[in-house]
């Protein structure tokens, strides 16, 4: 029965034994060839994860990464054909993967790799331009609720690992990794086709978090002022960096 065939083959691929599949083989001597399919499937998933988590791979080393990725694949095999976004939640797997205990910052590195990937593939939402703002009635500006463009990721990290992560995304990895035990706020986004990232002060992080949830510029700025920073400079920097979305303009202008 074909149903048994696919079921049996799936079992073979997931390492549950070849016994059920053998009766479907025309040549029993071909049983040893099933490794080809098993290896292809496992390797495909592992290499997809390696491509998605290059800094984790570099810091942990390829020989460490492969069994860690293999275990993730066994626990969470892909459910969809496009594999470039496979591996959501890999940071949690890294956090509970026993051999990675000696690298407590590795889940943070995985979160940053993931943020890069999601920013890279995020929808192309139009950004609010500085010229859009200069053309506005200044009195209506505080009422603007721009939101953030689709690629923007706001992360609060358990380790200050942004600089180390960035160095390990480059071809020439930093020898001397500086990773602090304190929390760090990081912004990851895509601007003109290129993923950017920055470690930002908590006040800027809070400001962007409020804009992201749909607050008006006026109220977000007021809070930031209370926090002791001048948000207008950060706002204009964010404007030129393409952080704010243009899609809600029509509601407010």
């Amino acid at each position, binding site marked *: 029965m074909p149903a048994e065939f696919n079921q049996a083959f*799936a079992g073979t691929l997931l390492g549950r034994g070849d016994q059920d599949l053998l009766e479907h083989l025309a*040549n029993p001597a071909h049983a040893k060839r099933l490794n080809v399919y098993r290896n292809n499937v496992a390797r495909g998933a592992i290499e997809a994860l390696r491509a998605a988590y290059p800094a984790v791979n570099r810091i942990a080393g390829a020989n460490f990464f492969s069994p860690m990725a293999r275990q993730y694949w066994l626990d969470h095999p892909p*459910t969809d054909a*496009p594999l470039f976004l496979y591996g959501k939640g890999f940071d949690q797997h890294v956090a509970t993967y026993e051999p990675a205990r000696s690298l407590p910052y590795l889940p943070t590195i995985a979160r940053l790799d993931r943020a890069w990937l999601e920013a890279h593939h*995020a929808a*192309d939402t139009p950004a609010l331009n500085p010229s859009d703002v200069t053309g506005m009635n200044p009195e209506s500006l505080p009422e603007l609720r721009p939101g953030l463009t689709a690629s923007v990721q706001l992360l609060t990290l358990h380790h200050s690992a942004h600089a180390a992560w960035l160095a390990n995304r480059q071809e020439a990895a930093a020898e001397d990794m500086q990773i602090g035990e304190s929390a760090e706020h990081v912004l990851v986004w895509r601007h003109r086709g290129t993923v950017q990232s920055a470690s930002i002060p908590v006040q800027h992080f809070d400001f962007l978090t409020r804009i992201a949830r749909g607050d008006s510029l006026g109220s977000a700025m007021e809070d930031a002022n209370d926090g002791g920073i001048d948000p207008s400079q950060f706002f204009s920097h964010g404007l030129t960096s393409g952080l704010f979305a243009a899609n809600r303009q029509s509601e407010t202008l």
Partner: protein
Amino acid sequence: MTELPDSAGLALKPEHFRQALETPAEGMWFEVHPENYMAPGGPRLSWLDAFAEKFPISLHGVGMSLGGMDAPAPQHLDRWAQLIDRYKPAAISEHLAWTSHQGTHFNDLLPVPATRAALSRFVEHVNIMQDRLGRQVLIENPSIYVALKSEMSEVEFLRETVARTGCGLLLDVNNVHVSCHNLGLDAIAYLDAFPHHAIGEIHIAGHEEDTALGGELLIDTHSAPIVESVWSLLDYTLALTGPRPVLIERDTNIPTFETLLTDHVRAQGYIDAARVREAAHAS
């Protein structure tokens, strides 16, 4: 059969985007796996926009699982439809293979036993894909590593699929070489029996010997140069079919664009020779 030109094309890799977009090679067209472009947005999609402006594009799917138990996923068909709408491909294709089962995606082209039950299911799935996308799909013969209990040959299975769905075929000459070697079949006999009228596209690629079993088992890796015997099979095939679009596939261990262009020129030479032969026969 398709809107692809009867000339040689290349599998498009992100590593070559910049160079490939400026290539002056005559008759050039490019093929991509649509699964790699099923993203919400981002630069990869913009690159393909630029290519679609200048070159014919072929979408060659590896994830529809037409040979599986489950019907094609509506979500996956929707994403295909969006890509067709955006890039207006000259050809679309998929495989005689399955890639997923009960919600798990294996990301490999897994073999389908050539049985009557599997054929009915395959025909139904090809019809679903063609109906949803509103156009003909080319179906590719896979590389096979194990002989399965079957009720017909692979060529009969494909011939019957063409008759019952109106699909076209994508003949992968390297897969013929690899499968026939692995199963002890005659590649020339396979090519002779293949329904030539249905061939809308031809693939050639490199393969490697299995690291564990050696020369007994060839693996379709797309990671190595095309061997001479596959070039010969291409020449033989084009003599049977006349000029057809020929694609050079390379997915890993990717060489420079110039190296791929050397293969491109060689493949184009075989197509040109087929055109000359055809003209000589006609006159």
